[in-house]
């Protein structure tokens, strides 16, 4: 199986093909509904956003509370399509990849192709299993949102499937 590390390069991403299984190591950022809404509001108002999105990977995830003595609690993906409307603006800001579950809108797929990004799937409903691949976890923005805050995760061999590649090919088509 192919192993990739962050920061991802454009060349590495171009080589990923839809349906391919990949293990990812490095840094990813969680963000889901409310974090997306806030990021987009800030971007639209030309305000500074709390993290530099350039070259980053966004994971659609709201983890449970972290149990004592662990890096993170259960932390599987949430439904990606709810983030579709925000995706083009974040791609424009330079994100290179997203991790989630399920289909994306046609508009989101077009934007992924246009910005030469990639959309990964990971095991849906397997938050306990996925927590094993997370080594570090710290909240970095919007902490008042609780599970919907942005968390910076350090992952090792996090299992992914390429859902949409840079050519705009979707695994669901």
């Amino acid at each position, binding site marked *: 199986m192919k192993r990739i590390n962050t920061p991802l390069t454009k060349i590495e991403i171009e080589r990923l093909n839809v349906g391919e299984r990949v293990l990812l190591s490095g840094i990813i950022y969680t963000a889901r509904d*409310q974090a997306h809404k806030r990021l987009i509001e800030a971007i639209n108002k030309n305000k500074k956003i709390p993290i530099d999105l350039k070259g980053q990977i966004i994971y659609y*995830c*709201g*983890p*449970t*509370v*972290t*149990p*004592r003595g662990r890096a993170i*609690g*259960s*932390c*599987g993906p*949430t*439904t990606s*399509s709810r983030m579709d409307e925000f995706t083009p603006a974040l791609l424009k800001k330079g994100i290179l990849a997203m991790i989630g*579950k*399920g*289909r994306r809108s046609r508009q989101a797929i077009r934007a992924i192709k246009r910005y030469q990004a990639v959309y990964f*799937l990971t*095991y*849906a*409903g*397997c*938050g*306990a*299993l996925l*927590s*094993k691949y997370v080594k570090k976890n710290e909240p970095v923005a919007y902490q*008042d*949102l*609780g*599970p*919907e805050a942005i968390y910076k995760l350090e992952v090792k061999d996090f*299992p992914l*499937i390429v859902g949409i590649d840079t050519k705009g090919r979707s*695994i*669901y088509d």
Partner: protein
Amino acid sequence: MKIVTADKIRNAVAELCIRANLVLRKDVLSGLKATYSRETKRRAKDILRAIINNAYIARKEKLAICQDTGLPVVFLEIGQEVKITGDLRRAINKGVEGGYRRGYLRNSIISNPLFRGRPGYSPAVIHTEIVRGNRLKITVLPKGFGCENKTQLKMFNPTAKISEIEKFIVDLVESAGPDACPPYIVGVGIGGTADYACFLAKRALLKRVARRTLHVARRIGKLEQELLRKINKLNIGPMGLGGKATCLGVNIETYPTHIAGLPVAVNISCHALRSATKTL
């Protein structure tokens, strides 16, 4: 007359919240294993293995099966000879809060649906039924919202054919596709009023999945099997990436209804169908 204190209810609810979220129901786990052995596609098998493995890890390491620890739906069957001392509603919500905190579960409840706000642990949605006897049966069903978002209600004409109802249910599962985390368990409520059909669809999820014996009403049992067969032909599969394992079971609950109507509600559960029950 039997006296049950609010404290006892609070403790039971807390325990049930933790158990439901950490220990996958036996019937669901065996349903997953059976579907794993039937599945032929490699990718589908690989995902099912991860799902089963996830349940073992959750149980062993005391982690939530899914990070979406749901909106806790609490079903109470209160025997008419039971006397509850103290504040019942408060006891339930305190139990939920205590259990969710103690189990390191997720605070997914916002106090206002329109204006949102900071997420917390409660309140639960509570369904109360008064039944015969002197027992109090409590069931906690933490319902994840990936699948809850796919719920539908349709008020059919009373002259509708069974095949139209089947089509409504199968089409709904098809449109849910990968989004609600297949393989699914499909709860169906037929009859009553609009609200009651929705309640029945939810309560149907508490029934055993993939029962070997047919529904007590044979015709309903056959309908369940027929729906399961049709849904598993949709080739949605685990994560919606194709395969036979689209649905582990269809559970139908019915209730008498009005001459002018035929309400049908469908409530899908993801593969992590969680619930736990205790009788006091």
